[in-house]
């Protein structure tokens, strides 16, 4: 088994290669089926590894394969090795499992797209890169996957690049991620200089034996936090994720909700031995997480685009994951990552189903009463909603509750903010569900009534990226008052049903009732160590009840406003929320103003001083060359003289050197 780990990433890679060559010939839907099969095969391979690991003792639950020596330069050597331990196998399971479902869904969603096969080429490449990221046994290999998923994300966000807004959204994601990558790279260098290896097992060993301590550990942790914040869309680097919704909806579900964005959290959990030594860096991570969660939740409250609500919700939930990591509650982080992958992918796919059903309209204010027309989509979406709102016994309740309990033990303020976020989450998700699936069929009403509802509509049009989301598909919205929504085909609804079942029952992975029901905790213990929550049983029950109450309050409040029509939505959907606290605008202002001046100054220095030196050297070389070129006349006698002169020079040396 150990020798066959490479098969896991190899299958989607083979699918990628196959589709690169034959994709266009296979076309629609053949290419999609090939891609789905490849990811499904990879999933089966992961399951086989999982079964193998389950068979082992807790201590020896690890497979390690060195495929080949990748880089060997002096003391620096990196192997191309794959590491399958409980953590990476957990990741792989839901990456390939959810990935396969989303591939299946995309066959229906992308039907008729002129670049159908190319889409699946990118998706398979993405899965390959993601598996490299997860399975890599060292930081450099993870970085390879990290950049790979980044590149695929860029390709897929700007998949419909005919619209310049989509292209610029892709660019924004790419550039923002570069800032995070900087942290990753410097962190890697620092690890290398500190312990002379970038292998995870060595890092873990070094951290346990006290070779990474104090300031170094803090610095490493913070640098990797910057990297993770870029990829996992945390403050202040979260701005790219909402814009990334310009991509096709399966991409939003797969990359920007379930898998890629969690890789930052995965990296931090992977480096937990270092974090263990990094005293106050943990607090930074936790605070970044909780503030991101709260801010994103407030923004989500005033979004009208069905995918944007989910995007900000994703940012908010990722904030929870950071909070969990910062409070050293790694099991909870992974637990919530898994459940979140299920219900958020479910809701994204559901929203995609709605968007297709509603002739590519994304504005929730034009929906309503869709449960009548799209029962499966509505039913599954509602399961996702209840899961994220934290209603027991849905999976989101168990995982979120664990994070909040961990926060309570660590810092009461964090707990309170997390709870507030939970309330807001329940509220904005309920708002979305009520606007979309309940109420009146608003697209049948005259257009004018809808458009002047929200405040700040004019400014919303100002940023290019904002526009991106509103025409998800190249043909944009054709919603007319006499439109009749229809349920999506089975390839789209089947993944919804499967994911909704998972979202319903995933809580059983780690039920807090007794040690025997905490399966995930025992499973991950070899990697993240054991963790005492520091909260007693009775306290836990109280906390859970408070959290459930908060969720119910949020739902009830939303029901009051959006179902019963009491209270003004405008009072809640504030302009600063709609504009994402103006963070995007602030960046634009800085880059256009002081930042631009600074960069121009740098550029001037580069042009005149650096280039001047370089050009000077180049001119010198050129002049020397021209001079020497004159010696090369092409005449035989001159060449002969040259050779003779060289020989004479050698003989002169001989005479000088000679000892008679």
């Amino acid at each position, binding site marked *: 088994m150990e020798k066959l780990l490479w098969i896991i990433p190899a299958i989607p890679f083979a699918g990628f290669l196959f589709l690169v060559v034959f994709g266009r010939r296979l076309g629609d839907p053949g290419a999609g089926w090939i891609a789905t099969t490849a990811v499904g095969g990879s999933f089966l391979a992961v399951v086989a590894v999982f079964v193998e690991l389950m068979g082992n003792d807790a201590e020896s639950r690890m497979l390690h394969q060195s495929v080949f020596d990748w880089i060997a330069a002096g003391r620096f050597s990196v192997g191309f090795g794959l590491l399958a331990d409980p953590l990476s196998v957990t990741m792989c399971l839901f990456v390939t499992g959810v990935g396969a479902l989303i591939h299946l869904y995309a066959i229906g969603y992308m039907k008729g797209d002129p670049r159908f096969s190319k889409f699946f080429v990118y998706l398979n490449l993405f899965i390959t890169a993601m598996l490299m990221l997860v399975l890599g046994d060292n930081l450099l290999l993870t970085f390879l996957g990290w950049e790979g998923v980044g590149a695929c994300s860029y390709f897929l966000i700007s998949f419909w690049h005919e619209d310049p807004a989509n292209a610029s959204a892709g660019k924004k994601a790419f550039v923002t991620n570069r800032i995070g990558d900087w942290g990753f790279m410097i962190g890697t260098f620092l690890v290398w200089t500190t312990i002379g290896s970038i292998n995870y097992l060595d890092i873990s060993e070094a951290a346990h034996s006290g070779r990474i301590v104090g300031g170094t550990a803090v610095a490493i942790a913070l640098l990797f936090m910057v990297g993770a914040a870029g990829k996992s869309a945390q403050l202040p680097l979260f701005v790219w994720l909402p814009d990334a919704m310009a991509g096709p909806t399966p991409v939003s579900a797969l990359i920007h909700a379930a898998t890629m964005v969690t890789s930052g959290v995965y990296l931090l959990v992977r480096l937990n031995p270092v974090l263990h030594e990094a005293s106050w860096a943990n607090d930074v991570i936790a605070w970044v997480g909780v503030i991101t969660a709260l801010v994103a939740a407030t923004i989500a409250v005033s979004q009208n685009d069905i995918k944007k609500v989910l995007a900000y919700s994703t940012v908010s939930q990722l904030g929870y994951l950071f909070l969990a990591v910062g409070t050293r509650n790694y099991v909870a982080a992974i637990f919530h990552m898994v459940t979140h992958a299920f219900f958020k992918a479910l809701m994204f796919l559901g929203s995609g189903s709605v968007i297709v059903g509603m002739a590519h309209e994304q504005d929730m204010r034009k929906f309503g009463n869709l449960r009548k027309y799209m029962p499966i989509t509505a039913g599954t979406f509602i399961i996702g909603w209840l899961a994220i709102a934290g209603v027991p016994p849905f999976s989101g309740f168990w995982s979120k509750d664990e994070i909040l309990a961990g926060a309570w033990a660590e810092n009461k303020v964090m707990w309170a903010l997390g709870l507030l976020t939970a309330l807001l989450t329940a509220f904005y998700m309920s708002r979305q569900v009520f606007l979309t699936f309940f109420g009146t069929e608003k697209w049948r009403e005259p257009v004018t009534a809808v458009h002047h509802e929200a405040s700040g509509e004019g400014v919303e049009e100002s940023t290019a990226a904002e526009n991106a989301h509103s025409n998800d598909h190249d043909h944009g919205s054709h919603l007319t008052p006499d439109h009749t929504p229809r349920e999506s085909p089975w390839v789209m609804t089947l993944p919804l049903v499967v994911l909704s079942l998972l979202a319903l029952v995933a809580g059983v992975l780690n039920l807090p009732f007794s040690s025997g029901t905490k399966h995930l905790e025992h499973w991950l213990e070899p990697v993240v160590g054991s963790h005492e929550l520091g909260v007693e049983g009775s306290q836990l029950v109280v906390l859970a009840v408070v959290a459930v109450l908060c969720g119910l309050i949020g739902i009830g409040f939303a029901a009051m406003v959006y179902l019963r029509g009491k209270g003004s939505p405008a009072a809640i959907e504030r302009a600063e929320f709609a504009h994402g606290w103006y963070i995007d605008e602030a960046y634009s202002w800085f880059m256009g103003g002081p930042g631009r001046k600074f960069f121009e100054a740098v550029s001037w220095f580069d042009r005149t001083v650096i280039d001047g030196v370089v050009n000077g050297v180049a001119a010198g070389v050129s002049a020397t060359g021209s001079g020497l*070129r004159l010696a*090369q*006349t*092409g*005449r*035989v006698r001159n060449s002969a003289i040259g050779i003779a002169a060289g020989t004479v020079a050698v003989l002169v040396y001989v005479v000088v050197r000679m000892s008679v």
Partner: protein
Amino acid sequence: MGQYLPILALGILATLFALISLIASRLLNPGRPNDAKNAPYECGIVDQVAPPERFPVRFYLVAMIFIVFDIEIIFLYPFTAVYRELGSFGLVSVIEFAVAVFASFLYVVANGALDWGPLKQVRRSGMMVTPSRTSTSTIRRVGQEGREVHVGDEGVAA
């Protein structure tokens, strides 16, 4: 080094003699050149065309074949004197050599080195005839073919 002294002296003397001759003729001649004196002439008549310097290439070919056999003789003659003593080693060596020479000879003969009949038409290159003929293109300038006048470097100037 003493034994080499006469050679050194001879060298110096030879150089001196050459220098003195050159300088003396320069000093002694009247030095009044004119066009008639500088012109090349033959039997008192200024020549109209450059003297022919080319021989048919076949003379060279025959001469070269002769040289090859010459060398073979040079090898074979001493070999016959000691072939018993050299034994199989010598025999193999000479056969090797003879085979190489003979194969080459076969090639040269097959390619017409010894044909003295009328000249065969030289195969014309198809590149020369172009549809757009002008008075300059129809006259073939011997030796200009393939020579790029403005090739980047001065390399082919000679």
